[in-house]
């Protein structure tokens, strides 16, 4: 099934992980919920790609789809493909896919307490992960679990390995989950809100750990988060999602210093900043995010947008390149957004 036809033959090396035109829809009583609606992105070795969006923007669903964690039914996948080093994941047999999940691609979740099994020892859960993908003895797997716990900075791993998840603090649990995700030296780590449930000082510890592991192993990290501060400090490139679509994509500097989509601009303007003495007043985005079952016609952001005109209505604006670069935005009024941003910076 995984013939050479899937490999890019035009000479440029395929990205490590690529998602093309992914659509994930759910049939519900209230209509079809288009959780992900035509999303494409890629990530390279050693790179951190952030996917930013508010709750219900579809940011987690695209990552979970890659790992086959979205059950179908109720989900349907009208289009899309996922490529790992140019090989289509979705065209592989279920058995082959399972082999890749957890070894080449692994995931860490927001809430380690629900992601870890409460009735098994932490060490056994990590060892199980090792033995699922590697043909090693129980003893060797346990030894590997011990090394991993030490590597993610859990003090006293020889004691901790025999404890249960409830005996771990929140930060420790997240470390244990990272140990589990790293058990088979993955190339890609999908991190879904990895620090949202943690205090800031522990968040700093966990992000420092992920950065170090990335440096040592050249892992690609897909960081899914709503926290623009975390994104600014750790991401190389950013996808901004709204209502199931990517509305802007670019490098970290492009997104923060020259936003071209009205939503990105609105988000950045609404943030209180810890490094600035009191701003006169925050500039919120009006209204609330749309229900994914009833996404507004045309640009889905237009009912909340200060730049909106009739030009936003006829169709969903395509992601278009800004000045021929990889910075792309799906906004009819991207020039006005750029000007508004410059005015705001000048103030």
């Amino acid at each position, binding site marked *: 099934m995984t013939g050479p036809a899937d490999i890019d033959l035009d000479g440029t090396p395929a990205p490590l992980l690529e998602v093309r035109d992914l659509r994930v829809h759910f049939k519900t009583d209230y209509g079809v919920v288009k959780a992900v609606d035509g999303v494409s992105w890629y990530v390279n070795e050693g790179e951190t790609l952030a996917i930013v969006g*508010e*709750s219900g923007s579809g940011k987690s669903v695209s990552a979970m789809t890659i790992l086959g964690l979205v059950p179908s039914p109720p989900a349907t996948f009208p289009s899309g493909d996922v490529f790992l080093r140019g090989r289509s994941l979705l065209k592989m047999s279920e058995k082959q896919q399972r082999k890749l999940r957890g070894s080449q691609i692994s995931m860490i979740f927001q809430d380690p307490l629900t992601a870890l099994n409460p009735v098994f020892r932490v060490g056994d859960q990590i060892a199980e992960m090792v033995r699922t993908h590697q043909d090693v003895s129980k003893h060797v797997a346990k030894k590997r679990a011990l090394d991993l716990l030490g590597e993610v900075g859990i*003090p006293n791993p020889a004691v901790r390995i025999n404890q249960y998840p409830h005996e771990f*603090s*929140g*930060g*420790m649990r997240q470390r244990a989950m990272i140990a589990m995700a790293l058990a088979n030296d993955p190339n890609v780590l999908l991190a879904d809100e990895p620090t949202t449930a943690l*205090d*800031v*000082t*522990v*968040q*700093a*510890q966990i992000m*420092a750990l992920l950065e170090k592991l990335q440096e040592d192993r050249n892992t690609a990290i897909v960081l899914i988060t*709503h*926290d*623009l*501060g*975390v*994104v*600014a*400090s*750790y991401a190389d490139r950013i996808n901004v999602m709204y209502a199931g679509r990517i509305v802007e994509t670019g490098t*970290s*500097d492009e997104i*923060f*210093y020259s936003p071209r989509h009205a939503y990105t601009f*609105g*988000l*950045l303007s*609404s*943030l*209180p*900043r*810890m*490094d*600035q*003495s*009191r*701003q006169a*007043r*925050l*500039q*919120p*985005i*009006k*209204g*609330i*995010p749309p229900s994914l079952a009833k996404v507004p016609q045309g640009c889905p952001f237009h*009912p*909340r947008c200060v730049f909106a005109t009739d030009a936003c209505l006829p169709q969903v604006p395509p992601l278009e390149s800004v000045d021929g670069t990889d910075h792309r935005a799906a906004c009819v009024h991207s020039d006005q957004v750029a000007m508004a941003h410059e005015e705001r910076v000048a103030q």
Partner: protein
Amino acid sequence: MTQASEQGETQASEQDDAVVAHAAEQGDAQVAEQDDADAAEAADQPMLQVHNLVKHFPIRSGVFFKRTIGQVKAVDGVSLDVFRGQTVALVGESGCGKSTTARAILRLIEPTAGRTVLDGVDITALGKENLRRARRDMQIVFQDPYASLNPRMTIRQILSEKYRLLGQEVTRKTISDLLDTVGLAEEYADRYPHEFSGGQRQRVGIARAIAMNPKFIVLDEPVSALDVSIQAQIVNLLEDLQDELGLTYLFIAHDLSVVRHIADRVAVMYLGNVVEIADRDDLFDRPYHPYTQALISAVPIPDPKLERQRERIVLRGDVPNPANPPSGCRFRTRCWKFEQLAESDQRRCIEEPPPLYDVAGGQGHQASCHFASLREVVRA
């Protein structure tokens, strides 16, 4: 001056009128008037005084005969003053005792020791009936608007209950004015909480808190559960209400960016103690306590270039168990400065709990560290 109504869910132009109408209906004169005399009075008498507040939770053991085998020292001697019309923020990580402090102030849980005085009334000394009456002056907005509204009551019932409990008349206009004040349309009154978004529910929670024209409101993480674009709407609403109704806030938060925006004064808590307290800009630009410095340095700022230059103080380990806190300075087990001290100095940290020292040159700036010194952490 107020535009809490950029929210789309609201009717902007009527906002100011509604606030006035609402205030007038309560017949509360002090609200609208803010003349110089008031300002002068505000300067010398705090709205809220908290003296040495303590809350210990007993740890019990045994099946039939419960014995107390220890104490969780959730709040261990907190003192605070909050001036009229001001916002004091209580910040710290989970388990530091900030929410317990707020609840003990309101006597939602009974404090173990200490004294709370609200506008001259000693709250801690009140009997049951008087406490109930005093509650009209002190209210709370909870973090989770999903859990704090009864799902089986309409918004009108939820809001009317407040008046009924405190023996006041409710007219049709009362509720619609109240909803208008928080930026919700009147037709929402007969809906149930599940029909609202998170931001709208938080508006209902705020409406409930301001219904009786309180003097003082505890805001317990009021925007933490909300999406970024909605947070700013609620923060603006809270600021407008403070201006219009002359409210005094105690703002509990872990998000320091919001705190920098909304607070006038900030108290940082660690393991049941206030470790540093200062005016807002003083605290962020000139922090003296090693914990405050680590906390501020750990908060990422949405500015990639700044982030590349900033130095992050990464603390070791987790917050210790509050049932068995370290001797002397409670922060010493995670303190980056402790590691750099000579052994004789370290002994001082281990043996002698640091009091809140006045910081040189700061106005009302105190830090509880024997070796406190300035370290700038917001910028590089």
